[in-house]
């Protein structure tokens, strides 16, 4: 059980039980779904971006404790940050969950997910919400479809 506590840390269990920013933004400037085809889990992320700053961010969906907690922690980490920082944070986060590198200080609470590195089959759960956010930001670079 001890090594399981490395994965399922209190912070993760707490964010799983009471996910932060777990709601739909009524008029997001950016939105995307992340799907993990392995398990069918689906997470939707919503962003409100103004002046290149993430003014608000939220998510919805059903997933395992790791993907839910990761999404919840991600929204906390990204709220108020410049859009440019998403890529940097994602890269640092990805390194932490996939390698044995030391946690960079700037990661803050996100580093509680470092235990995932010992569970390779769960890395996709931890990165699902991040991939969704990156997809949402990508869409902006493409022409907006008229409806």
């Amino acid at each position: 059980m001890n090594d399981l506590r490395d994965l399922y840390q209190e912070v993760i269990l707490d964010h799983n039980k009471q996910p932060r920013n777990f709601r739909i933004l009524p008029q997001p400037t950016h939105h995307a779904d992340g799907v993990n085809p392995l398990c069918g889990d689906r997470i939707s992320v919503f962003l409100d971006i103004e002046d290149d700053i993430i003014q608000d961010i939220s998510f919805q969906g059903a997933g395992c404790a790791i993907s839910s907690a990761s999404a919840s922690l991600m929204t906390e980490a990204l709220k108020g940050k410049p859009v440019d920082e998403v890529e940097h944070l994602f890269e640092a986060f990805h390194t932490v969950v996939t390698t044995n590198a030391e946690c960079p200080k700037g990661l803050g609470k996100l580093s509680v997910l470092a235990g995932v590195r010992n569970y390779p089959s769960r890395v996709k759960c931890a990165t699902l919400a991040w991939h969704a956010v990156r997809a949402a930001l990508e869409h902006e670079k493409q022409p907006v479809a008229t409806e």
Partner: protein
Amino acid sequence: MSALPPLTTASAGNTKLDLTRIRAEFPILRQRIHGKPLVYLDNAASVQKPNAVIDAISDCYRNYYANIHRGVHLLSERSTIAYEGTREKVRALLNAASIREIIFTRGTTESINLVASSFGGSTIKIGDEIVITGMEHHSNIVPWQLLCERTGAVLKVVPFSDAGELILEEYQRLLNSGRVKLAAFVHISNALGTINPVNTMIDLARARGIPTLIDGAQAVAHLTVDVRALNCDFYAFSGHKLYGPSGVGVLYGKQALLEAMPPYQGGGDMISVVTFEKTEYADLPNKFEAGTPNIAGVIGLGAALDWLNHLGLDAVAAHEQQLLEDATAQLLAIPGLSIMGTARDKTALVAFTLHGIHPHDIGTILDREGIAIRAGHHCAQPVMQRYGVPATARASFAVYNTRDEVEALVKSIWKVKELFA
């Protein structure tokens, strides 16, 4: 085949399996996972292999391997005899009328694709209907969807009850449209464990002149299948769920149908004469076995069938049903645990959810306890949609599982609850 020591002991009219001896025949079961004894409960995905199968494959490669059906040399003859020997064993397993009705494929999926492509492609037209059920594995959904896209035929789906039993009135209603050209359904559901009333379902289709295909992937290792008694037109299964190697499967088809069907793939071994103007196809079953097949795999499947025959499918089924009863009773005592699939006729698997805990988390925590289960949609996403869940956890049993292992499973699920409390 050399004489095997008995793995069963007869006592008071009951045949009891000697589990210690059976387990000793599976080298993989001896290992520890994360420091705990391996408890392998992912048998509906694939079962482990006994020494008899591992040795047969190794023996083939070490001592007599060569390509089949073409050599005048001794090794080719020996390989051909062993390969064709499995065909006779499969014929006997299914009680088929002739070895010409037994086609070797890569697995259930390829068997179904063969029928969809060859039988479906030559007989199914725009506006025709294909009936399947709501509890199919993706392998008995997608090939028919592809066929429908190609031909303009329509897929009709038989619904099932909350318990996981097909609604036969709906099945009959769908068959009555006058447009149904094939009914394809699963013998045992991999996601729910339901044993479908295939006898009745085949009879209902036959009464209307509708051919039937049965997906037997989950069935052949757990119950006796007699294709002549069933009177189905096609029956598909995989070797790897039958203690045989992966990459080998079987399609049974009635001879008259197989003869009328065009080949599935072209190539070597499926021809009798080839010129650039015209090719004459080989007779059954070779017409459907283009190219060099999985020779050692088929030979391994033969060894698996011998091994299973030696145990006796009835004794295996009785043991597994005992495990199912134990597991069901003990799991239902866990608060917040729901079992998905509670059909009266059920094979030895339990699909479940725990309130507030995702199946993937259950799977990871159980793995650390040495217990291998499946967590996910089980390649049956429509079944998950039917119950409104993204996934389930599934423990599935095989002949080598023990009542102690059921207890280990239950104890570990209590630990999952503790961790998430």
